[in-house]
């Protein structure tokens, strides 16, 4: 399946792409369109674009929405959702110490990557690591 999002990926879009490929659609193909672009390519599922089905809902990040829409129940993924939320959305209460650093790193990762696709591939490693570490702490 084809998936589309705005270019210049950050913490939430990197997390979403990892989630999509790892848990929703292993054959996912990603496309990037300029930020603010309203006309979406046909036949591709848009995500993390204001106003589409798979975007922020009730002040929570798109990663949250994906978990709900695709009925993913893994508690570790819900922890990651909480972390991404705090990194991506303005929150008054923060309970995940990893969050502020994660946002910073993802921005830097995009900056040193040749394009969004490369940033995605590299970002996947961060989320794989996050998942593994949360799993280690949960046991």
């Amino acid at each position, binding site marked *: 399946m084809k998936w589309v999002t705005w270019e*210049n990926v950050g913490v939430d879009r990197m997390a979403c792409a990892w989630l999509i490929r790892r848990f929703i659609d292993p054959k996912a193909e990603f496309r990037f369109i300029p930020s603010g672009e309203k006309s979406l390519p046909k036949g591709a599922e848009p995500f993390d674009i*204001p106003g589409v089905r798979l975007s*922020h*809902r009730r*002040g929570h990040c798109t990663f949250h929405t994906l978990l709900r829409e695709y009925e993913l129940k893994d508690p570790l993924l819900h922890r990651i959702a909480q972390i991404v939320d705090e990194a991506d959305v*303005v929150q*008054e209460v923060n309970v995940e110490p990893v969050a*502020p650093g994660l946002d910073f790193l993802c*921005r830097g990762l995009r900056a040193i990557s040749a394009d969004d696709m490369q940033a995605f591939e590299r970002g996947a490693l961060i989320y794989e690591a996050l998942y593994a570490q949360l799993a280690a702490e949960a046991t």
Partner: protein
Amino acid sequence: MPRSWLLLLYKIPPKPTSRRVYIWRKLKRLGAVLLHDAVWVLPDTPRTREYFQWLAAEIIEMGGEAWLWESHPALSGPEANLVQQFIQQTEAVYRAILTALKKKDANLAALSRHYQQAKQEDYFQSPLGQHVREALTSARGDRP
């Protein structure tokens, strides 16, 4: 190259009032400045742009209306005042931290969290920030 600003203007249904408070608190948390009780302003950066975009989407989701503009001042005088407002806002927090640090039983953990929060909204890098940072690290007992 003139500085670019983001302007957010919104309207939320009057009830329930909790939503208005919710959005207002988020704007304060972002360190946005409210101009003449009408328009919320932030310097334009990729990060502030992303935050404002989602906030606008959230307001629309609530059944409200939101306009988000990117703008360049055509008159430079008031812009300097605006920058000052941002600086003063952050420096007030920095000063409060410095005052609290002078107390005997200062809560260093809480104050360093305040500092980290204020630092995120310190859009014009006030030199006072560095001062607070040094005061906090020396309170921790770091030797120079």
